[in-house]
């Protein structure tokens, strides 16, 4: 069923460069675990033996933004924290994706208060929102699969001729 089974039957495949790159990219998403609060514990559970994120090629959690291409924002983002989250997002190399894990990051959740940002999409482009407070590990895996879906549809020329600023290289 694997790749080599397919290759041995025909001997060769024809495809586009975009498809190959997207296929490789989507099966090796390196997450940057932006663990802020409660969701971070469930995010840890996803990487652990029972749920095993390694099945999706994403077990390498990188705490350095320079080495990752998916940011999982897990936990309530306050106004004070928002600058930090944005700075880390800016440091990630393009192309990059963002999962808003849980109710707090998506909408502010149960914290309709003076210090909590009511949804991180006010200052970050979010690709996938995950419901739950916190989402069950299965739900985060589902979000990761959605991201893989999005990645498989990207094409190389989408990223071409973009000014550096848009590619995530900020002036700071």
């Amino acid at each position, binding site marked *: 069923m694997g790749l080599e089974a397919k290759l041995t039957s025909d001997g060769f495949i024809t495809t586009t460069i975009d498809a190959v790159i997207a296929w490789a990219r989507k099966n090796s998403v390196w997450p940057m675990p932006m663990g802020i609060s409660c969701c971070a514990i469930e995010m840890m559970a996803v990487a652990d033996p029972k749920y095993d994120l390694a099945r999706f090629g994403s077990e390498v959690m990188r705490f350095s933004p320079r080495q990752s291409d998916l940011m999982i924002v897990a936990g309530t983002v306050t*106004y*004070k924290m*928002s600058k930090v989250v944005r*700075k880390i997002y800016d440091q990630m190399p393009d192309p990059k994706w963002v999962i808003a894990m849980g109710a707090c990051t998506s909408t502010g959740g149960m914290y*309709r208060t*003076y*210090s909590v940002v009511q949804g991180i999409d*006010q200052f*970050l482009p979010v690709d996938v929102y995950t419901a739950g407070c916190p989402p069950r590990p299965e739900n985060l895996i589902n979000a990761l699969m959605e991201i893989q879906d999005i990645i498989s549809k990207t094409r190389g020329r989408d990223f071409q001729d973009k000014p550096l600023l848009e590619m995530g290289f900020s002036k700071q």
Partner: protein
Amino acid sequence: MELKEVIIEKLNGTLKGAVLEVTDFRGDLCLTVAADKIIDVCTFLKSDNDLEFNMCEDVTAIDWAKRKMRFTMVYHIYSLKNKFRLRLKVNLEGETAHSVSSVWASANWYERETFDMFGIKFTGHPDLRRVYMPEEFEYHPLRKEFPLLGIPGSIPLPKK
């Protein structure tokens, strides 16, 4: 004699007029102390050999909104020796209180938190800064007139 009576008797003996009111609700002994005597009372309670209230568990304030003496300071102190918890209350005239961080070092951060949340200033505090909110924030969230949802635009968000 029960410990509660001992505490009151000792305080009335050495610091006359310091304890204004004694309440006992659900087993929590609470003493209201005169504002200018709080340091003396705390020092006495900590250093007395029978009482030894050596741990300060909590310092906070209550905002009574419309009352004339608007703020009340609340201290929870604990005696490891007697396994007993005592609450002290001080009604404040204005927005200034005496810092007890010279008596218990742990009061330091609790007073900073109270300053952050209520805007009460502490005289004699070594390092009175905000704990939770950003430094440039102008308001004090736990005051009753501050809305739950905050004041829009008071803390800037990064650009998208």
